[in-house]
């Protein structure tokens, strides 16, 4: 997505949709390649994937209504905490 904004002169929101569609194709190839190695757990993918689909519908609907700065800050903290768990 940063590539779309910087290189192709996309607007931030316009890049979001285009980037998601590209990710769908890339993730499909990636899952296929990893599937050949036997790394993919389809049940676990469904278990997190289905709730995530619900989350993204809700998130997209809320995007125009919630303060972006607070949300960005909150998720930044979550990522740092998660990275710490991973390293330790």
């Amino acid at each position: 997505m940063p590539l779309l904004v910087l290189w192709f002169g996309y607007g931030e929101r316009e890049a979001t949709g285009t980037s998601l569609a590209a990710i769908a194709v890339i993730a499909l190839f990636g899952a296929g390649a990893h599937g050949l190695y036997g790394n993919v757990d389809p049940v676990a993918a469904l278990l997190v994937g289905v709730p995530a689909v619900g989350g993204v519908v809700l998130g997209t609907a809320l995007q125009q209504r919630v303060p972006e700065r607070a949300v960005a800050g909150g998720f930044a903290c979550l990522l740092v905490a998660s990275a710490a768990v991973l390293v330790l």
Partner: protein
Amino acid sequence: MELADLVGAIVIGIVAGLAGGLVGVGGGVLLVPGLVIFLDESQLGAEATSLLAIVGVAVVGAWRQNRYGNLRLRDALVIGLLSPLGVVAGTVAANAIGERVLELAFAAVQLYFAWRLAKRARPTGAPPSRRKGSLAQ
């Protein structure tokens, strides 16, 4: 699998989807640790599994964004169809390097996204059109 882990996996799925819809960052960076922590996947297994989960999220997300006129499908397909070379290289590399290296590399990616989000959370990180009131800073 314990009930608490099941609930945890579902919650992290919702949170990851919310993050994706709200700030465009989410999906894998949250699903992978969720799969490791709650569903006992290895780092490699979690990264591979999250890709499959992300397909559905990305398709639905792009479809919703399309309603706001935020999707250029042809550009997206061109980028996506150019990806297999990188995907194959990445998959081979991920299977070749150790779990610990994967963990550390993934943590670095998470911190990079956290840094980008933190910049947006600061007043000076706002787009220029919204920055007018904060020139004094």
